[in-house]
Each structure stands twice: as structure tokens, then as C-alpha cells.
């Protein structure tokens, strides 16, 4: 009686990864084309051709790269800040019960509030310059990452912490040399979700008085029902997301070589 083993085995299918990616992209295009043709959705889905046209139009007006650049800056600045703050906060929450007791309810409360709902509050508090956008993205990414990384911190195998203590590790050492590497899988999901949160909050962030940016471009085009430009914005946000994901994959390979994984 033998059970065939599939998956979780390190076998790879013969077809290389990028071929699958191409297939996947082609399928997406076909699906898009279909949506752009079906009467029910044709109205809303500009066709790929129209989107390309819109792209060249935006490039010609000279705003395309500018929009992308400034949005990218906001997303990355907010994300990096969120990450830098989330790591120690998650750690302190895992470490000091008092800190956790004080901070957790706030985090729990704020993380459920729709960003669009607190835009006016941000504007009132921070203003309308670049800082405001970065702050909105910072809040969104921070919250996602702190929740994820905190779970990771709690999940660290206690025996490893014990082993480190025995070898003379201070709290700081244990944080940097045990807790952080041991919760790498959680930190990685946290970063992934953080980057997503940064991008999905972009539109909300650029409601805080922006004259440039992909989010603003989408919002403004939406007002004029210029679906080609809306889709253009979505496509670019998606592409930026895919690039982030590639970077994450790279980071992941570097950081978790020690792990026994099932699929590569």
C-alpha cells in the first residue's frame, strides 16, 4: 500500500519558472481582453490597446514618470519607516508585559480604522506636504507589520532563547541574534503585507492634498471616468508590486537558506 508523494517534495516540474510566469501573464492578458469585449464589462474595462495609448498620452504630457517617481518615494519612505518602528515595538511588546498592555489596545483599535476615514485627522495633524502622505502609508504599514512580527516574536522557540542566555546573551543580543532571525518567516510575511499595504493605501495617502502621484492620477481620472488612465494606474501599481515581490523573494532566499522548505 503506497501513497504517491506529490508536493512538499523538492521535485521541480520540467518547465522553468519564467515560462510559467509568461503563461500566467498571457492568461491575464487574455482575460483582460475578454473583459474589455464582454458587453457587461466593456464599459469599464478599457482594452489593453487603450491603456497603452493612455500611457503614451501621459508620457507626452510629461507627468507619467513624475507620478510614478513621487508615489514610489512615498510608498518606500512610509514602508521603511513602518518597518523600522514595527520591529522594536513588536519586540518590546513580546518582552515587556507592561509595554504590551499599554500599547496593544491602541494598536488593536487603530488597525481596524479605514485609512480614508482618518485622512482629515492626518491633514489636521500633519499638514498637506509630503509628510502627510508618508505618515498615512507609515501608519498602514506599521500596523500590519507590528501585528505580524509580534506573532513571530511570540512564536520563537523558547529553548533557543535559553541557549543564547546560557552563552551570555543580554536582552539586546537575544533580540538581535535570536528573536529577529528566528522570526524571519514572520518578518518576511510582515514585509510582504507591509509593501502591499503601502501600495493599497497610496490612493488614500494622496487624498491628503497631492498634485502628483499614481493615486492622484487614478482618483482624478476616475472623476472623468477615464477608465484607460485608471487601469493604467492600476497596472503600474501592480507592476511596482511585482517588482517588490521579486525583491522579497531575493531577500527570502538570502535569509532563509537555513530553513527546511518544501517548495522552492
Amino acid at each position, binding site marked *: 500500500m503506497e501513497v504517491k508523494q506529490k508536493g512538499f517534495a523538492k521535485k521541480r516540474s520540467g518547465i522553468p519558472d519564467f515560462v510559467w510566469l509568461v503563461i500566467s501573464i498571457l492568461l491575464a492578458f487574455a482575460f483582460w481582453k475578454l473583459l474589455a469585449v464582454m458587453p457587461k*464589462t466593456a*464599459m*469599464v474595462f478599457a482594452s489593453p490597446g487603450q491603456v497603452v495609448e493612455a500611457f503614451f498620452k501621459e508620457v507626452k504630457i510629461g507627468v507619467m514618470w513624475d507620478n510614478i517617481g513621487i508615489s514610489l518615494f512615498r510608498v518606500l519612505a512610509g514602508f521603511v519607516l513602518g518597518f523600522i518602528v514595527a520591529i522594536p515595538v513588536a519586540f518590546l511588546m513580546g518582552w515587556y508585559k507592561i509595554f504590551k498592555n499599554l500599547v496593544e489596545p491602541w494598536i488593536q483599535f487603530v488597525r481596524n480604522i479605514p485609512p480614508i476615514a482618518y485622512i*482629515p485627522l492626518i*491633514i*489636521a495633524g500633519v*499638514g498637506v*506636504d509630503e509628510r502627510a502622505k508618508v505618515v498615512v502609508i507609515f501608519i498602514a504599514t506599521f500596523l500590519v507589520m507590528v501585528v505580524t512580527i509580534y506573532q513571530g516574536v511570540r512564536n520563537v522557540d523558547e529553548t533557543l532563547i535559553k541557549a543564547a542566555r546560557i552563552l551570555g546573551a543580554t536582552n539586546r543580543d537575544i533580540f538581535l541574534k535570536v528573536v529577529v532571525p528566528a522570526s524571519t518567516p514572520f518578518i518576511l510575511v510582515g514585509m510582504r503585507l507591509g509593501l502591499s499595504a503601502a501600495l493599497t493605501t497610496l490612493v488614500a495617502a494622496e*487624498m491628503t*492634498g497631492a498634485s502628483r502621484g499614481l493615486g492622484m492620477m487614478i482618483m482624478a481620472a476616475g472623476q472623468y471616468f477615464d477608465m484607460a488612465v485608471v487601469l493604467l494606474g492600476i497596472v503600474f501599481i501592480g507592476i511596482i508590486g511585482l517588482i517588490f515581490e521579486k525583491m522579497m523573494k531575493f531577500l527570502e532566499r538570502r535569509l532563509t537558506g537555513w530553513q527546511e522548505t518544501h517548495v522552492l
Partner: protein
Amino acid sequence: GCSTGNAGSSTSSSQPEKLTKMRVAYMPNMGSASTLVTAIKMGYFKQEGIDVELVQFAKGPDEIAAMGSGNIDVSQIGHGAHTLAAKGQANIITIDDTSLADAVMGNKDKGINTISDLKGKTIGTSLGTSSQVILDLALASVGMTEKDVKVVQMDPSAAVTAMVTGNVDAVAIWSPSTITVKQKMGDKVVTLADNNTYKDQMQFPSSFVVTPTYASKNKDLLIHFTSALFKAMDYRSKPENIKTVADWVAAQIKQDPALIELGEGEGNWLTSKYVYDSVKDGTLKKIYENQQALFVTNKQLPAAVNVDNYVLYDNMKAAYEANNK
């Protein structure tokens, strides 16, 4: 900001004086941006010794928030945000235009040809906007209320989608969404009511506002600012100029000029003379009073207040007189 102190030299553009910086909030559409953009393009602000920085917002409430925190000096607001003025949190330095943008539109294929046909139908609108008010007025004209139909909340762009895909039977929206609907649906769509239908009962002003504190500290500066606006309004009110204005707006908000030009008719482009006259004969007061009465009816405002508390007639008068002395 502080007052410029050279109130007399309003039209003299010769001296290269230090300009006073002002940050002004607007929204990316014809009705909200056109006066400001014209004043910049025509150099009217410079003539008044003012350097204006425009900041774009998606929604009126966000502008108010920015103004409250001191990040914005002046905001151009639409209908809904006027509640703030009534609540004493903002002062109106001048009216900008009155809206002709709103319309209630029905889908003929869903059997809607008259307002009465709306009974029991699904209508998409943005709650709390002037379009919803037009809808209410339209319903009232045939003895119905919102309870007789199904009103659903959506953004204008969502409403367009819902309308053209047949997911709602009617919409109460404003330009440019109205234009999109017409373009996409052609003669399948019928306009049941718009601002002109009820212009005697109700007009929807959009206005420039500042915080009361700012108003009291910068009286002179605001007169200069308003002067520039008036010049721009006069420029815009000339039919031969409107296309140019639309193109400037398009450039400012980085939109396709062709799209913006579609919105040339979405506002009643007032002249400074009209404003001056209506201040004097009380028409302006009436406009704001009607609007406030509506707020009270809809419980957006607890009780009526005196419009004179928040409309700065003197500012408008002074600005007009400075321009026409």
C-alpha cells in the same frame, strides 16, 4: 500669513515687491479650479502682491481639515462643506459660482421617462451632495420622498459604472459624470431634473472660505485676494474665454483638455458685478439662507443661524470697489 499693508496699490503691477504667499486648496474640476487658475495665468494675483500656491484635494472636508490646522489659508468648497461655515468654523470671503452640474438621470430601458417612474427604483448618488438635494427636490415635486425609492451611496465614478452597466436604474450625479453617462448611453438616458429646474428654490453656491481667525487677521490681504478672484471671474464669464480657461484647468490638473472642455457648462460663471449687486440687493444672502434651511431640514445643522455671521459682504464690496474705482 500677515497683511501686505499696500492696499492702495492694488492695480499697480510695476513695483517688484515682495509677494505674500498664500496656500489655496481646490479640487480637480472646472467648477472648483477655474477661477484660481485663471487668476494665476492672467497674473491677477501677482498684481495684487500675492503669490498663490495651489494644493489639490479630493474632497472638501479634507480641505477644511487642512485649513483648520493652518496648512491652508483659503479653500474653494462645494455645497456640503458650507455646513462648516454655518457652524461658525469658516467665513465665506466670496461666492465663486453656482452649480449647473447636477442632474437626475434615468435609464429609459428600465422604464424611466418621468420623475414618477422612479418609484421603487434603485438610484445611485453620493449622499450629502447637491445632487442628492436635486434628487430630493425632484422626488418631492411628484409627492415622493427617498423612502419611495431605493437610494444607494456611491462615488460619482462608481455611479457612472452602475448606471451604464444597468446596475442602478437612475443616478443623481454631477458633471463630468453626467457627461460620461450621456456619452455612453446616448438616447437611452433621460435627464429628469437639474439645477435649473429648481433654480428658484435652490441654488448651490461654491465659495472661497477662510477660518474666522484668519479672516480677522488678514482683512486687507483678503480684499486683494478677492480682487484677483473677481478679475478672474469676469474673464471666465466671457463665453469666448471659457475654452481657454478649460485648457488652463486641464493643464493644472493634468487632464485631457478635451475632457475638461466638456465641463464648460457645469457652472453659472458669475461676474463680479453680479456678486456686487446681489450682495447689495440681498440675493446673495437669500442663496445662502436657502442653502442653510436645507441643512437644517436634513439635520445636518441643529438650528438656523444668521447668514451674516459667516458671509463677509464687506470683503466682496471692498474688492469690487477696488477693482472698479
